[in-house]
């Protein structure tokens, strides 16, 4: 199990998250897909830091990614609830207030 295996796994996980974000129109699922992509980036950071263990830079960066992901999830879910209150649906195709 070299570092290349970790890199390939991280890119596959990021691709699953990106495909979910592009293919689904449910806002909840899209927020979960964003979390999948952030987790894939964390795997990359930790794998590279394990390969070059002279300092903790990658792990420090992954720590901040986790903290920002928590803030992003809180704000995203608040926006979702506000959107649901206006539209009574979670379908992002219906978010057309700025379109016309």
């Amino acid at each position: 199990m070299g570092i290349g295996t970790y890199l390939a796994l991280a890119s596959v996980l990021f691709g699953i998250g990106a495909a979910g974000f592009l293919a689904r129109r449910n806002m909840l699922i899209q927020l979960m897909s964003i979390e999948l992509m952030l987790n894939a980036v964390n795997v990359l950071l930790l794998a590279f830091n394990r390969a070059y263990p002279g300092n903790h830079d990658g792990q420090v960066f992954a720590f901040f990614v986790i903290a920002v992901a928590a803030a992003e999830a809180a704000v995203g879910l608040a926006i979702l609830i506000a959107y649901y209150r206006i539209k009574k649906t979670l379908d992002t195709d219906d978010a057309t207030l700025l379109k016309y």
Partner: protein
Amino acid sequence: MTGPGATLFVVTSIFAMAGALMTISSRRPLRAAIGLLVHIVSLSAMFLTLNAHLLAALQLLVYAGAIVVLFVFVIMLIGPAAEIGPMEGRLASRTLGIALTIVVVLAVSTSVAYFDAPWQAVSDEFGTVEGLGMAIYKQALVPFEIISITLLVAIVGAIAVARSRTE
């Protein structure tokens, strides 16, 4: 890396991919949240093979303990309206999106899979609470404090956005 680390990596990577696929393909949002939970717990175990002990614990605490629970609470608040079928409308754009993603992922993953760097021996405190804590305290003290302000602003913003308009 050989032995238990390799076995743990294979098992956790299979579970991580299965959880991710369950997240993006399930029709019910609660099942998607459970898939996200499986994904997060298996990634937390995978972090142990990378000598990231503190981050494995933080992954469990923050993601499984806070974010997934927040998702489940929102699903509970919204109720049946949260369920939308997996394949609704705009077939051309979503097929194009998935196809482009698969092509890019195949190209990237097959090209990086052969990158190899020998695993170097790590010190005893690499990734532990002491080692990572001292690294954050010495190099990233200002970003750490800014993160606390970011979280505070996120809390205030979440309350302001989600608050009911009908006073």
